[in-house]
């Protein structure tokens, strides 16, 4: 089993937390995992991204140029990482922020996710990242949704643990969206 993903967006959208939670979920399922935040001058600008690799074998490179999957939380991320996704790979796009006419990537399974709208249904639009993470996990099967929900405990500081149920229902929303065929 091997899976990798580049998760990218604006700073503040919670992309590094998404990567961390995915890594914790993989640990929960006793898989090998690496998490690599973007390292470079981008850190001082407005965008953020991280790479997560999950495997049941020893992981070599934590840095991936052409990922099996990617999550684009905004348009610059889609433009940068969309074309890099491997053929027949998976691309999740935050369609609440990226105009539909921009979402045209060839040769990959592209899933636009209206994360903000779904997050509002879950109670808070700031849960948009958890919606997409739920969708990524459901669509790829890299880890179980159960493991992802459990990952919130080690992944969040104790003072935010009261918010875990809200985050979990946002993950459910994303997964449900995938199960309903992306509608």
């Amino acid at each position, binding site marked *: 089993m091997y899976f990798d993903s580049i998760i990218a967006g604006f700073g503040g959208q919670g992309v590094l937390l998404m990567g961390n939670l995915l890594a914790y979920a993989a640990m*929960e399922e006793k898989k090998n995992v690496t998490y690599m935040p973007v*390292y470079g001058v981008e850190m001082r600008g407005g965008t953020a991204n991280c790479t997560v690799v999950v495997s049941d074998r020893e992981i070599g490179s934590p840095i991936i140029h052409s990922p099996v999957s990617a999550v684009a939380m905004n348009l610059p991320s889609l433009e940068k990482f969309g074309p890099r996704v491997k053929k027949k790979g998976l691309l999740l796009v935050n369609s609440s922020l990226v105009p539909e006419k921009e979402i045209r990537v060839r040769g990959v399974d592209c899933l636009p996710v209206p994360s903000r709208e779904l997050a509002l249904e879950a109670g808070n639009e700031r849960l948009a990242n958890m919606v997409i993470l739920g969708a990524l996990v459901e669509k790829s099967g890299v880890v179980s949704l159960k493991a992802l929900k459990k990952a919130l405990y080690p992944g969040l500081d104790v003072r935010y643990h009261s918010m875990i149920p809200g985050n979990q229902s946002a993950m459910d929303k994303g997964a449900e969206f995938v199960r309903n065929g992306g509608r």
Partner: protein
Amino acid sequence: MARSNTLLVKGNEAIAMGAIEAGCRYYFGYPITPQNDIPEYMSRHLPEAGGTFLQAESEIASINMLLGAAATGARAMTSSSSPGISLKQEGISYLCGSQIPGVIVNMSRSGPGLGGISPSQGDYFQATRGGGHGDYRTIVLAPHSVQECYDLTMRAFDLADRYRNPVVILGDALLGQMKEPLKPRKHRGKAVDKDWALTGAGGREPRLLKSLYLSEGELTKHNWMLHRKYRRMRREIRYETVGVEDAKLVVVAFGSVARILKNAVSMAREQGMAVGLFRPVTLYPFPQAVLRRLAERVNRFMALELSTGQMVEDLQLSVGPDVVDFYGRPPGSIPSPDELYREIRKNYRKRIG
């Protein structure tokens, strides 16, 4: 959680955790990217362990504070990144000359000069040749995973005490920032009797730690003694091999490059190429004898580095210059597994067929 004893941490944090577990109680440092997670962790957790965290006014001050603390027999550490490590070289030379143990972490960045913050392996010469003045060596350990960052830091403290010599941990930005599962384990090293430590001479003969030897023949004797010590360090040689048993071409790399190379080597093997990987864990002492034995049945070697060629010289000294090829990269970009695979394939076709 099922694996509640497993943590997800950065390489930098793992180094700090390993240090505290190994009994490090004094940390002196000055901030520099990309190793700031080490002082950050230390500033919070070292006082909890009853130790002292001190942000000094400079790198030069911090290495000399380490010298002072370690002279009393305490376990002490400093960390920095390339330009900061250059500033510490005088102190490292004094530590060696005075035979004072200490752990120096270099999560290196790219140079020369202020260079940049991207990963580089351009500090190999500085680390392995004794980067300051005088004829000395430090043990150099090169981790390639978060777990190794933890384990080798603990080991570094034991080796430093065993040989009364500074030990350098040479990592880079990639290793420092990457998070991986870490299984912390208890430190099991034996405490060394430090009958040289400056603990106050009440009731015993005074002790002296110095690196100045002016009387006739004294310095020669001192240097020969140090030399014998460096030779004894050879028993600490550590390395990892992957698939060298049937290899016709062995690729040699350390640290983060070795890690990326592991993917490239399995790609090559899947394509039927007899390629193996040799990863030195101790860069000094370099696993020269092991490589020499390997060269009796392996035709070709190839060094891969994030520099324009430093470790390759140690490889050439080990197996002979005629059987070694080199692929290197100056700072700026990290090679992907595919790129390294293509370099290996090119070399394999040319040399092996």
